[in-house]
């Protein structure tokens, strides 16, 4: 057992990779490929539960650390660690893994073995990205993620899959290569690729601004932050259901995770300089994404644009630079992973039956598929942020954090504008729901649609259960991440501009109140949410 528990992060990361190699070497029959992939993904989930239950929430530092010299006698190392932020995202990944594989049981019939292998490979790369504590190792996983996703979109996607796949690949590469130059530059300042050494480098203001820009570009494209979002609707619409779920569920969070883990703590001056501009972009993204979603005739595209809007909330929360906003951002990452992941699965269900996603093709589906309509309703409400469901908590914390932020110019205006995004979100989601499910069942083609099968319910029920669980007990997540947030963003708190008495603004006050205007209120809000 200790062989596994001593290297638990390595196992969690590489079990899916081993699975994909097994698929390519051993398996011949499609059905065997599906079963093997599912077993591997479940095993990986079980392994990740070990992380979840052995994790010490009181500590904010990296746990389960593994470190072996890799290059240049240890200046670059194979260095894995897991803090609260990595933990929740990694467990989200392994949780979605088996559900995704199960969801494609019938949908994919062509080259099943390759499909399953690429999905598992993608999972390994994503987990490695969350655990890596060495910058080169991080970069390797970050880039390696592109390869399986590129094939998943390009081989099993829709009509314009090749365009979407290449666009996805190139867009992401554009940001990454500049980050690579930044990493190399820092490497020679720090003397090693270790993240801790990077954090100890003293950089001048100009350097920080440039390096922040290089890192932020890479992450902003991945999120995606307006106006770099154009690859996302293409990728989402063309990707097969499983691809969309991974994309929305985990891949987009890579960007916000990277900001939180690397861009923000490494370059506090850059954060202070760019935060106002970034939060404006985030608000534009929220409203723009919502408005564009409103007019989409295609359900999947609508959900894709809603992702732009929701991820705008996450970025806004992070760059509000308040404890509440950042915790809310992380929570929103998870909530969005669950609700949007479920939405893509649900869209996939009806697409498998009708091979169309045009809203106008539907109407009155609630009569024909009551169970499906119920599941869809819950997910829709979770997505629009109904209290009691997961989406509410994150959005609320982000809006509250933004409202009370002392660093953002016009923080209150930002919060108000962002809140219109919530209203618009309810508008486009519910309007879409109304057009698809209510009214008369007047399209003949929809007469014989079967309701959810048992397999589909097995896929959806866990997601829906957790939408409720996180909605009523957000502490489950917040407890895990709070100590880690304080630790990761400690470099920001150490900056002179973080303290009002030094003449600056109250930027980041761990453990304390967020602003002078409403002392204690923000803290109480966090307490209440538990």
């Amino acid at each position, binding site marked *: 057992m200790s062989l596994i528990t001593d290297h638990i992060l390595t196992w969690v990361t590489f079990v899916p990779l081993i699975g994909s190699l097994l698929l390519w070497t051993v398996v011949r029959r499609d059905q065997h490929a599906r079963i093997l992939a599912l077993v591997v993904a479940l095993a990986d989930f079980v392994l990740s539960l070990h992380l979840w239950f052995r994790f010490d929430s009181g500590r904010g530092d990296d746990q389960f650390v593994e470190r072996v010299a890799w*290059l*240049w006698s240890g200046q670059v190392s194979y260095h894995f660690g897991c803090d609260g932020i990595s933990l929740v995202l990694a467990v989200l990944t392994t949780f979605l893994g088996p559900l995704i594989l199960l969801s494609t049981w019938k949908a994919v019939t062509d080259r099943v073995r390759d499909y399953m292998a690429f999905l598992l490979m993608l999972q390994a790369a994503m987990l490695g990205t969350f655990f890596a504590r060495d910058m080169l190792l991080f970069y*390797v996983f970050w880039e390696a993620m592109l390869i399986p996703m590129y094939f998943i979109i*390009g081989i099993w996607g829709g009509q314009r899959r*090749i365009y979407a796949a*290449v666009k996805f690949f190139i867009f992401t590469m554009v940001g990454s*290569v500049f980050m690579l*130059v930044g990493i190399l530059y820092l490497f020679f300042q720090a003397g090693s690729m270790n993240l801790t050494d990077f954090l100890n480098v003293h950089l001048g203001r100009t350097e920080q601004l440039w390096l922040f820009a290089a890192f932020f570009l890479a992450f902003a494209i991945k999120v995606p932050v307006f106006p770099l979002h154009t690859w996302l609707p293409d990728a989402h619409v063309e990707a097969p259901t499983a691809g969309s779920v991974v994309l929305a569920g985990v891949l987009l969070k890579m960007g916000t995770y990277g900001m939180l883990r690397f861009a923000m703590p490494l370059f506090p001056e850059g954060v202070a300089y760019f935060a106002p501009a970034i939060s404006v972009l985030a608000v534009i993204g929220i409203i723009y994404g919502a408005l564009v979603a409103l007019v989409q005739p295609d359900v999947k595209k609508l959900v894709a644009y809603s992702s732009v809007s929701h991820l705008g909330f996450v970025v806004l929360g992070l760059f509000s630079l308040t404890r509440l906003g950042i915790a809310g951002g992380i929570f929103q990452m998870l909530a969005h992973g669950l609700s949007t992941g479920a939405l893509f699965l649900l869209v996939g269900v009806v697409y498998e039956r009708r091979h169309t996603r045009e809203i106008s093709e539907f109407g009155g589906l609630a009569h024909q598929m009551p169970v499906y309509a119920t599941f869809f309703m819950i997910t829709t409400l979770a997505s629009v942020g109904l209290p009691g469901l997961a989406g509410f908590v994150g959005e609320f914390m982000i809006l509250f954090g933004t409202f009370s932020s002392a660093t953002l110019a016009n923080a209150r205006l930002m919060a108000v504008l962002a809140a219109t995004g919530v209203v618009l979100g309810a508008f486009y989601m519910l309007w879409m729901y109304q057009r698809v499910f209510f009214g008369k069942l007047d399209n003949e083609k929809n007469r014989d649609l079967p309701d959810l099968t048992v397999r589909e319910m097995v896929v959806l029920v866990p997601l829906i259960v957790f939408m409720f669980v996180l909605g009523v007990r957000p502490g489950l997540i917040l407890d895990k991440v709070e100590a880690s947030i304080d630790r990761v963003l400690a470099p920001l708190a150490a900056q002179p501009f973080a303290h009002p008495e030094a003449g600056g603004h109250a930027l980041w006050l761990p453990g304390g109140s967020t602003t002078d205007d409403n002392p204690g209120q923000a803290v109480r809000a966090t307490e209440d949410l538990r």
Partner: protein
Amino acid sequence: MNEILIPAFSRDAAALLPYLVVAGGGLLVMVVDAFVRTLKKDHLSYLVMVVLLASIIVQLVTRPADATLLNGMLVTSDFTRFFNYLFAGIGVMTTIFATGLFDRNGRYRPEFYPLILFTILGMMVLAAANDLMTIFLGLETMSLATYILAGGVRGNLRSSEAGFKYLVLGGFSSAFLLMGMAFVFGACGGTGFGLIGRTLENGQAHQAFLSLGTGLMLVGFGFKVAMVPFHMWTPDVYDGAPAYITGFMATAVKAAGFAILVRFVILTQPQLGFVWYPLLSVLAVLTMSVGNVIALVQGNIKRMLAWSSVAHAGYLLLGVVTMVAPSVGGPSLMVRSSEIGEAAGSAILFYLLGYSLMNLAAFGIINILSRDPGEEADEIARYAGLSRRQPLAAAALAVALLSLAGIPPMVGFMAKFYLFSAVIQAGLIPLAIIGVINSLVSVYYYLRVIVAMYMQDGEDASYDGTEWVSVITSGVLAALVVYLGVMPDAFHRAALIVFRQIQF
């Protein structure tokens, strides 16, 4: 005791043995082909491989001490041995691929076997040259054999065109090289590297003649490594030559060119560093950019890889630039011990190794798909659906192309990582940024082939040549590409040691 028992000549002979093995092997193959009638044609390929492996084993066993041989004409060190191993390895792969093709179409080119050995002999001499005369001997031995290999497919117009073009332009570039050597001789008063090095370190060489001479020699070397603006032959020759030869030229000839270019630049760096640095910077940027931009619009995979090989020469030149960056400075042998110099030098060596692996894998697959040299599998559009017809070949080619694009976890990424990190260590950040932008551009055209193979459906009949020995060989190369991408450290360490042993 040993000093008395083993005369000086026999110590030289031990160091010369690998060269003698390859030269003798070439002659032997020729004789066997001409006189042994009972031999099956493909037995020649075994003989070639045995000769090449023997040359490797001889070096591993004798491990002669670092020394200059034959009155300073040649030099032997880990640096030269590294290239000898590389050339021999590439030679073995090329022989496998070539023989596979001959087997398939039943038309043997028996002249291929001795010629490949003579080419490799020329490369070995070139990499070990310690005198301007030896440079010329090695370069011409290599080139003449390559002209025939590229143009020698009888009855094939494109191949003949390629051979002829390569011959004419190559002859032209050799003339430049010779003229340059004459000037350098005039400037330094000798042709030996040792003498040239001493003269330059004392600053006694005639500056104008020296600059002119090395400039002209750079034309000659630039031609061999396909450096812009001396790259014009590359697409036509790479396209016209049969794929197994193109793979050989893109890897071995380029490596040989860089072996001598690196040594020559280091040698002349004390008095010419201030010229080399701006000149090579401009050439490196031009070479990368021209190669990548033109590769974007190629519909022919061999031409695309030709332009990509130009681009890769540009990346390698970045490494050479770094060795002569102002932050390095000092006498020539300082380069090999200065931190940045050795970072750049080892990066170049590692890059050449990785580049050879991935390029050989790619050309190996193209060669497998080709029915015969007259009908090469070169249209990217006709690669459509390859992943269904030949999953293993498509996967190997995909790995090779992703590696060429510099995507981790393939060796192409690690090679670029080492290279760009040396560039940044030397403080040449603008050059590094131009480099990564270029590698970004290159992603697009490599992906096009993968798009065709995996994402488009094609006719069953297009490009269906296959042969398991070559497929396995390419598969092994692709596996090595991934292995070196994940575990590059041992090889990079070796490259570092090798570079420190560079001799003059």
